């Protein structure tokens, strides 16, 4: 993969591991060359808990992707998640020295550095410093201050950080498979690239990715990332709830969820039941439909309530509404429930169409992995040829994890 117009993305998910290989074409579009997928083991709540096992699974997914795309992968954009990931917004300021009035690249870098100068707990490291808005001499609405005249440059950033050693686990896994990590990207940013277009970001949108072990969300307002977060709860919890509440084994609960999972209340006719069949097809216990929905409903409702509380201040700015994705977004009725809780339009969404993606991967499970190559592509487009400042920033950020 020596060509620099080929990108690979890797999501080490709680239930599946997905690798996407894509090619940036001359017309500026992106084409997926192949998707590798393997069941995931040794991963809980989006983080590796059994290193060797997880590594074998990642290896399988990589090999699969290489075969399907006919590309030998050497470098990868790595999606990360985990309950330890936090974020906040901060403003950086630089004053141009006497006698100089034109804002240059160094100022842009300095304002970013200034915003990042916060005292994080020692165990933490910064994952992203994302520009929201620039202000020149107090004036906002500046899209690109480079070359503008001014005395004071300010900028708001969304800063994401997490526990270093926990991020390093995923990086180490990639490294031991003889691959380079091109960049570490939090899953929610990647996912947003897959399900939102420019227009949505501008109008304001909330993306919620409910996977197997985590729920990752991000809010865009006026085209910029406003908030993001991870809640270490996902589809595994729903299955566990069902297994406890209905007193059935986990595997059976998982199957029942996929077949019948629904968050809608009050639609079952009184006494409606579902017949549980065992592997041989024999009828077994009867499960009450309303109780099943109730168990799932309160769990999803709780997840949405937590997200809603955490992004409270931006609830009124979601012009494009709520986009629910990830494997667990396929629970029936989830769009209505989201709409009820967030008080705006909401939909379950698979990734936006992307050239080269076969129908097998047009499902919400693959939003994150497909989003990773889109993210890589965006970074690539943003970077003028050669070693720009942006390119260096990326290198430096990811360099922190490599050693």
């Amino acid at each position, binding site marked *: 993969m020596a060509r620099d117009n080929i990108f690979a993305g890797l999501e080490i998910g709680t239930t599946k591991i997905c690798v996407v290989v894509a090619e940036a074409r001359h017309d500026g579009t992106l084409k997926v060359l192949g998707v590798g997928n393997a069941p995931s083991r040794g991963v809980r709540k989006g983080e590796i808990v059994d290193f060797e096992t997880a590594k074998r699974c990642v290896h399988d997914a990589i090999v699969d992707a290489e075969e399907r795309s006919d590309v030998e992968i050497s470098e990868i954009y790595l999606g990360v998640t985990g*309950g330890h990931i936090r974020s906040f917004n*901060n403003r950086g300021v630089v004053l141009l020295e006497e006698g100089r009035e034109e804002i240059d690249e160094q100022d842009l870098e300095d304002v970013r550095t200034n915003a990042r100068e916060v*005292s994080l707990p020692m165990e933490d490291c910064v994952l992203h410093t994302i520009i929201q808005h620039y202000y020149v001499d107090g004036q906002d609405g500046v899209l690109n201050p480079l070359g503008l005249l001014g005395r004071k440059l300010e900028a708001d950033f969304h800063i994401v950080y997490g*526990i270093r050693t926990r991020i390093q686990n995923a990086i180490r896994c990639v490294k031991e498979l003889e691959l380079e990590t091109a960049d570490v990207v939090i899953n929610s940013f990647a996912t947003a690239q897959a399900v939102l277009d420019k227009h949505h970001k501008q109008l304001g949108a909330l993306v919620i990715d409910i996977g197997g072990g985590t729920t990752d969300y991000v809010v865009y307002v006026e085209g910029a990332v406003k908030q993001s977060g991870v809640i270490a709860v996902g589809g595994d*919890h729903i299955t566990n709830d069902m297994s406890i*509440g209905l007193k059935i084994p*986990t595997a059976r609960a998982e199957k029942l969820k996929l077949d019948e999972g629904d968050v809608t209340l009050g639609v079952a006719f009184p006494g409606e039941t579902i017949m549980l069949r065992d592997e041989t097809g024999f009828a077994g216990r009867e499960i009450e439909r309303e109780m099943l929905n109730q168990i799932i409903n309160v769990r999803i*409702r709780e997840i949405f309530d937590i997200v809603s509380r955490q992004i409270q201040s931006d609830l009124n700015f979601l012009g494009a509404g709520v986009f629910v994705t990830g494997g667990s977004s396929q629970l029936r009725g989830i769009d209505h429930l989201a709409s009820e809780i967030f008080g705006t339009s909401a939909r379950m969404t698979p990734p936006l169409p992307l050239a080269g993606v076969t129908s097998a991967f047009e499902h919400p499970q693959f939003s994150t992995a497909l989003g990773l190559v889109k993210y890589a592509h965006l970074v690539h487009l943003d970077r003028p040829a050669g070693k720009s400042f942006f390119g260096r920033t990326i290198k430096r950020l990811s360099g922190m994890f490599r050693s």
Partner: protein
Amino acid sequence: MVQLNPQFGRENEASPALIIKVIGVGGAGSNILDRTMLDGIQEVELTAANTDVQSLTASVANHKIQLGRNLTRGLGSGGDPELGLAAAKEASEDIQSALSGGNIIFVCAGLGGGTGSGAAPFVTKLAKETNALVLVLVTMPFSFEGRRRCEQATTSLQLIRQWADAVVCFENDRMAEITLPRMGIHEAFAAADLTISQSIRAIADLLRKPGLLSLGFDEVCAVLREGNARALFGFGEAEGENRAHDALAKALRNPLMHRGEMLANSANVIVRICGAANVSLGEVSMLMEELNRHINDGTQLMLGIGIDPSMGQKISVSILGSLGDASERPQPVTQTRRVQVPTPVEPVIEAESQVAKSVPEPESPAALQEEPEPVLTIPPRAPQNEAKPVKADPPAKPESKNAEPKQEVLQFESVSRGRFEKSEPTIIDGQDLDVPTFLRRHIKGK
């Protein structure tokens, strides 16, 4: 002011025939025993006492006592302390014979469940009746284990205090401030087991391992019997150039030490330094000097130095103290500190230690921060144990037939962490999100 009062030959006072017994009560108690056993402790008799036969079978203790053979029939007490007590009474003869003949008896248990909370006070009483020095080491439950467990633990602790010479109380919540944010609950328990087993070992060593400077049994008893029978404990081990300083810092960092804050309130403090023959006097005096900064002028400080060739390049520091009632602060300068160091060392000048007191504690975040004061400070992650009791909101009208008396226990034990076993608990706004939402909301099926 440190008074140098060389006194030799004290090692003769330490009785080599001192018999130490440790009894672990309940599930947690026997886990602590296992830890103690596995970490290696010599010539100590370990007895596990539990209602739960399964846990008893798994234990590596050399003596085992089944409590409530007829009453609970090998099952646990289901979180019921009354049942735990009755079960222990049923086995009182076994317990008595296991404890008889000991000079020092350690009783350990995790309070909150039925067996530990119910039986540990009774075992303590039986231990005291043998006239031994009785030290009790217990853990208090996490607050998220629920109110009932916390109350059971508190009640039990009060009973234990009536009979014990000293109680070292490990609060899970506090220990978890250090361990839990990065570990699961089982690792947190394992960490607690380790701390407790270290205390047992250090106290046992304090009393009987040969040393340049041994502390007499009576002195240790005096320290522990004083105060309101609340003991403080810290243990640290280190090697390398700065080993004395590092070992002390580790000992002070022990969750029970509150970074040394509590030491200031302690009326008596025993310090034991242990290492191979290479422990230098310089190291000892430096260590004592540092420790002086943490203690009050009214505190009586006693020093023991142990020589253990197996320590190699390592040095260990154990600190043991007893706390008076939190309300009655120690009176200033009622007695001079008594520190015994084997050979005359340059006396510490008083003025110097005054200056030293104003130096920020090594642990304070400010001291760790190298960069200049930044604009914004992100506080460290809130400890996971912020969790309020799982059953915070009142149960929705108990439907009589569904109202199970032992529901509180269910939260923690039956609804095990299952598939989330290996991962860190997800606790948000005081709710343990790994517990099914419908259970926390008291939604009942028919």
